[in-house]
């Protein structure tokens, strides 16, 4: 495959393994990635009821080190990095002065002078350049994406499967904590994180061992119902869980407060990029807000379909899809706050016709405790 720009698509170390297992490959942000193996619905349901294994090696990794690492990260991200302990991770965003995010990310703290960021594939180079540009303090910033494969084992059976092949026993690894661990004998970074709304783990490790780790996990998980899952299921899973996807719910014209990310916006930590704009918005109120909706009419809403409120066009659907576990057609969009209350009826324009939908609370799906 060739990207629209003409250059060859990037491939993860698992590319040949995906192809030989019959995965349908697509161009995703310049990467040739598996969109599905055995069907999006089946893969989605496996993650909700058993487990799924995802190749997410396209994700980027950026390392920030040195005595100034904390100060730099406090400046360029919105969450409070000072609250992290060693081996703890937090969801955050890389900020622009206008209060929007250049990307959302996970910040992992190895030590007070050593951090590891996981960022979106499409944004990695832009993120790296931006952090470097903001680095007047002289922290040591490196794009180390090429040094890591990343796989995600997600679902209620993820722990039981991982216990068979990981050392030390991952059972006591808490949600949003990580540590050095061996999986299938390969040393890497094991984090209890994910993007599906289920319990699960993400493992970062040297690309040379990718096929071995992948196959060992699939074999170990087979009796538990583990199957490989592609980016198609990853998208429907994160949508049911109400997680934003950069380029859809987040972009350089949407502020964190508009995106319901006030919970990672820590005004109390002091200065950070965009703080002033966000504080003004915090006081004055947001002009628009991210909502969830479910379709009342039968057709699914899709990304980009116009939203109509009281006969007036009001933005577009940011993500819309059939939800395989909930068995509803759901979506997210931006609406004025006065139209964002639960139960409010709105309309989605589908191929020139207006279809009814209802505002519902986010997330659409929350896993049973």
């Amino acid at each position: 495959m060739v990207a629209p720009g003409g250059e060859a698509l990037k491939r993860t170390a698992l590319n040949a393994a995906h192809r030989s297992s019959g995965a349908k490959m697509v161009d995703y942000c310049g990467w040739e990635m598996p969109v599905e193996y055995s069907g999006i619905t089946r893969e989605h349901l496996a993650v909700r009821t058993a487990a799924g294994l995802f190749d997410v090696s396209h994700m980027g990794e950026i390392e920030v080190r040195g005595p100034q690492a904390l100060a730099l990260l406090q400046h360029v991200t919105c969450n409070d990095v000072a609250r992290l302990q060693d081996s703890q991770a937090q969801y955050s965003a890389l900020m622009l002065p206008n209060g929007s995010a250049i990307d959302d990310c996970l910040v992992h703290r190895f030590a007070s002078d050593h951090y590891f960021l996981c960022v979106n594939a499409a944004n990695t180079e832009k993120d790296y350049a931006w952090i470097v540009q903001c680095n007047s303090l002289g922290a040591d910033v490196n794009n180390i994406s090429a040094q890591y494969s990343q796989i995600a084992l997600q679902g209620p059976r993820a722990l039981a499967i991982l216990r068979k092949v990981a050392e030390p026993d991952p059972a006591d690894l808490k949600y949003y904590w990580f540590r050095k661990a061996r999986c299938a004998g390969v040393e890497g970074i094991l984090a209890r994180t994910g993007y599906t709304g289920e319990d699960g783990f993400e493992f970062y490790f040297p690309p040379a061992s990718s096929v071995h780790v992948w196959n060992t996990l699939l074999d170990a998980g087979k009796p538990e119902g583990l199957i490989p899952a592609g980016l198609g299921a990853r998208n429907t899973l994160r949508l049911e869980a109400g997680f934003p996807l950069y380029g859809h719910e987040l972009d350089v014209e949407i502020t964190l407060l508009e995106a319901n990310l006030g919970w990672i916006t820590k005004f109390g930590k002091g200065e950070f990029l965009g703080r002033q704009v966000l504080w003004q918005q915090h006081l004055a109120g947001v002009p628009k807000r991210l909502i969830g909706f479910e379709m009342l009419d039968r057709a699914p809403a899709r990304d980009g379909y116009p939203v109509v409120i009281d006969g007036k066009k009001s933005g577009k659907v940011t993500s819309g899809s059939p939800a395989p576990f909930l068995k509803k057609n759901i979506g997210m969009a931006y609406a004025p706050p006065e139209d964002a209350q639960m139960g409010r009826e709105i309309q989605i324009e589908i191929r020139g016709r207006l279809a009814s939908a209802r505002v519902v609370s986010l997330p659409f799906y929350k896993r049973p405790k």
Partner: protein
Amino acid sequence: MYPPEFLYTKEHEWIRLDESVGTIGITDYAQKELGDVVFVELPKPGDHMTAGESFGTVESVKAVSELYAPVSGEVKAANSKLQNSPELVNSDPHGEAWMVRVEISDRSEIDKLMTADQYEAYLQQEKAH
């Protein structure tokens, strides 16, 4: 694989002719490309369809795909089963998942369609591309 009594379009619809009535669906190749079908939108009896133009949509979890009319004519029936069981498109695309029956208004349009052999050769070409 592809029934020899059907004719095919480049957009992966099939049509079975019975006198002046054509029964239309999408091919096995099309359903595989789409993945799990979750929604089918069809015209109503009495609607008119025009060869080469969209007469409905079929949606999988991932994608929306237009249905293109192999021939022009008046819709006599639409398969109401697909409303509640769209997954039939995946399990039986050439049989139970027929979509519409149409009274063909211009039989010369049939000459532009492919035979099963021609369609299979066309698929080989598409895959090589």
